[in-house]
């Protein structure tokens, strides 16, 4: 929409060298954007297309033809059904999950994965967090162009195979654990690559050669997971169980949601929409959780925009990243939505939106909006420790006021955490699970007793 001051030259100088402003009157501009908004809010541009093939049909056929093995979401994963964009069913496993960690989360926002695991502990669900995992390597690919569809596919299927066989290390049958993908980019990338693999016999043959060398085939075939599942989808299915354990009232909290591009714009037909969440107009995860927890979810005009991460921009062209993050997301969330907190569900977005506020001061754009992941917020409402568990001290944006609004004494919590650091220095470390479970082969691995092997 045209805004005041958008004269010749416009607010931005992009759109290619031959771009000129439209000089629409305010009424004309409103009419034009109104038309677009009406359709966008109705998912029109996605559902209005003559779509769409469900790649899972190809997958079942290939399995029938003896070409691949499908890692099923089985009864012991206690699956629950969700509806995706076109009303198809997606099976979300709820227990016996293999954590496919995110390098950006673990390196930079550690309270993100620890909140997911803690919630699983609270709900009595089983999982494995282990060291035999690489990242998806897609951040690197999207940022640099180093890598290719074959390398991405091989990395994907190697990790998926490890998820499948991991339980053997503890004397349990293969297929016990089902992969749960923490990172939005891994999730989007794996879905895209799964589609390419299912469509291309040539790609399958190339990847099969590599995985054969690694000993990562099942009965001489590629193993493909039935569903690619993002943790935010798992959280969405858990939202009522989480709310049942909620101890903190968040009805006074005004939250804005930043949905992650790679979660819902990549392979959109596989994304959860729910008619009870914003009329099913927008992706249901995170918003559905916040509403169930009783927070006020405030809509804002740049909801569809990305965060500015850019993959290479966050590293090599940060002027773009921080300008976009501040101008298109943070400023709007604060000034338009009067938001107390921005909640996301992906690694790069949380990092970008959280870390890039401080520099705004240099140009008089002073904002202080807390940014965290949906799982961290959910854990807090269940009484998780803001420092020991939600690890909020790694966040650059100020969260203290938000905690006060939620009735959490952050000063006391911080003092407890500082005291805990002395315990850590003395080697008395609290963990969410037995550390010995994390190593499933190689140095440090302890075999289970013979009686438990052979599965």
């Amino acid at each position, binding site marked *: 929409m045209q805004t005041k001051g958008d004269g010749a030259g416009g607010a931005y100088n992009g759109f290619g060298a031959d771009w000129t402003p439209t000089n629409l009157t305010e009424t004309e501009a409103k009419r034009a954007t109104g038309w677009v908004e009406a359709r966008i809010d109705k998912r029109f*541009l996605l559902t209005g297309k003559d779509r769409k093939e469900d790649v899972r049909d190809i997958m079942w056929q290939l399995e029938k033809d003896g070409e691949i093995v499908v890692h099923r979401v089985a009864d012991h994963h206690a699956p629950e059904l969700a509806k995706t964009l076109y009303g198809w069913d997606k099976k979300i496993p709820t227990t016996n999950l293999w954590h496919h960690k995110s390098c950006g989360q673990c390196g930079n926002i550690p309270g993100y994965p620890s909140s997911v695991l803690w919630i699983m502990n609270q709900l009595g669900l089983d999982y494995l967090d282990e060291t*035999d995992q690489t990242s998806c*390597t897609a951040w690197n690919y999207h940022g640099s162009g180093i890598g290719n569809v074959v390398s991405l596919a091989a990395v994907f299927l190697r990790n998926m195979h490890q998820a499948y066989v991991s339980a053997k290390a503890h004397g349990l049958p293969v297929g016990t654990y089902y992969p749960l993908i923490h990172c939005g980019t891994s999730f989007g990338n794996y879905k895209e690559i799964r589609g390419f693999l299912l469509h291309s016999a*040539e790609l399958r043959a190339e990847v099969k050669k590599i995985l054969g060398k690694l000993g990562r085939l099942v009965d001489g075939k590629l193993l493909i997971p039935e569903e690619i599942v993002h943790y935010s989808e798992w959280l969405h299915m858990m939202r009522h169980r989480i709310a049942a354990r909620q101890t903190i009232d968040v009805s006074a909290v005004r939250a804005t949601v930043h949905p992650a591009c790679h979660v819902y714009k990549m392979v959109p037909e596989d994304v959860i929409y729910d008619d009870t969440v914003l009329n099913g107009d927008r992706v249901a995860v995170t918003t559905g959780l916040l509403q169930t927890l009783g927070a006020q979810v405030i809509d804002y005009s740049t909801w569809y925009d990305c965060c500015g991460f850019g993959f*290479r921009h966050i590293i*090599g062209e940060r002027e773009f990243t921080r*300008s976009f993050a501040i101008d298109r997301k943070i400023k709007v969330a604060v000034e338009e939505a009067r938001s107390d907190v921005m909640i996301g569900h992906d690694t790069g977005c949380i990092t970008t939106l959280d870390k890039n506020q401080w520099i705004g001061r240099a140009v008089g754009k002073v904002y202080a909006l807390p940014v965290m992941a949906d799982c961290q917020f959910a854990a807090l409402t269940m009484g998780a420790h803001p420092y020991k568990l939600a690890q909020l001290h790694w966040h650059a944006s100020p969260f203290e006021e938000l905690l006060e609004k939620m009735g959490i004494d952050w000063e006391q919590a911080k003092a407890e955490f500082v005291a805990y650091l002395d315990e850590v220095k003395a080697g008395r470390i609290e963990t969410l699970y037995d550390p010995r479970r994390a190593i*499933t082969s190689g140095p440090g691995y302890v075999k289970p007793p013979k009686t438990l092997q052979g599965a």
Partner: protein
Amino acid sequence: MTAHAKLPTPPIADPVSDRAPVPQEALEAIFDDIRKHPLYDHEIHGCLNCGICTATCPSAQYYDYSPREIVQLLWTENLEGIYDAMQEKIWACAQCYTCAARCPFENSPGGLVMILREVAIKHELPSVKEVLRPFSRVLLKVVTTGNQLAPNMITRDAFPDWGPNVTKVDAPLMVLRKAIPMPTMHTLDTAWEVNLRTSVELYTIWEATGVLKQLATVDANLFDVVSDVMDEKRDEWEEWLEDNQDEDGDTDD
């Protein structure tokens, strides 16, 4: 689809630059690699020139960049224009795929940009080294460990614009890491502890898929460092395997 082959073959040069003209054959070789890319037909199906992609593109707001223009250049097989866009413009894309979600033709301009980036690397276009220089730390990390980011990469010095609160509790980094309740994350050099076998398997993937070759093209020094690390870890793994053959001849995996 082969209209470009019938064109006369004048050398392509920028009249206000001293750069050597680019021969037509070079432009054709580049375009051939683009359209032979296994995903090319998946990412482009025609173009209405409607501009919806550009209207929703974050990078178009801040750069002289337009996904519509990229798609048009490819669709009309404008070899000179493609070559020109590959110098700099393709690196403006933020890879958000908003364009792909919106395009009525189900094109993926973001996906096409990735093809162009891969081909730019293969053809060693002059801009590539320049653009990827700041990325070398991440490349080293991801190729040698399978993690792209490590806690000790996030320092106040590396990210001065993130301000003073990289962490809000002052303690040695390793103590803070050990205070994370996930044992896999008590690390500094990688985001989580990576199993030795995992890294070694990853090296096989890099070799078999031409990624190391790409790396050598972009940064020969980095390639040397990576090769040394790979050799070391492979030796370490072999030694461990030798030491740990159990009575049954099995190893522990």
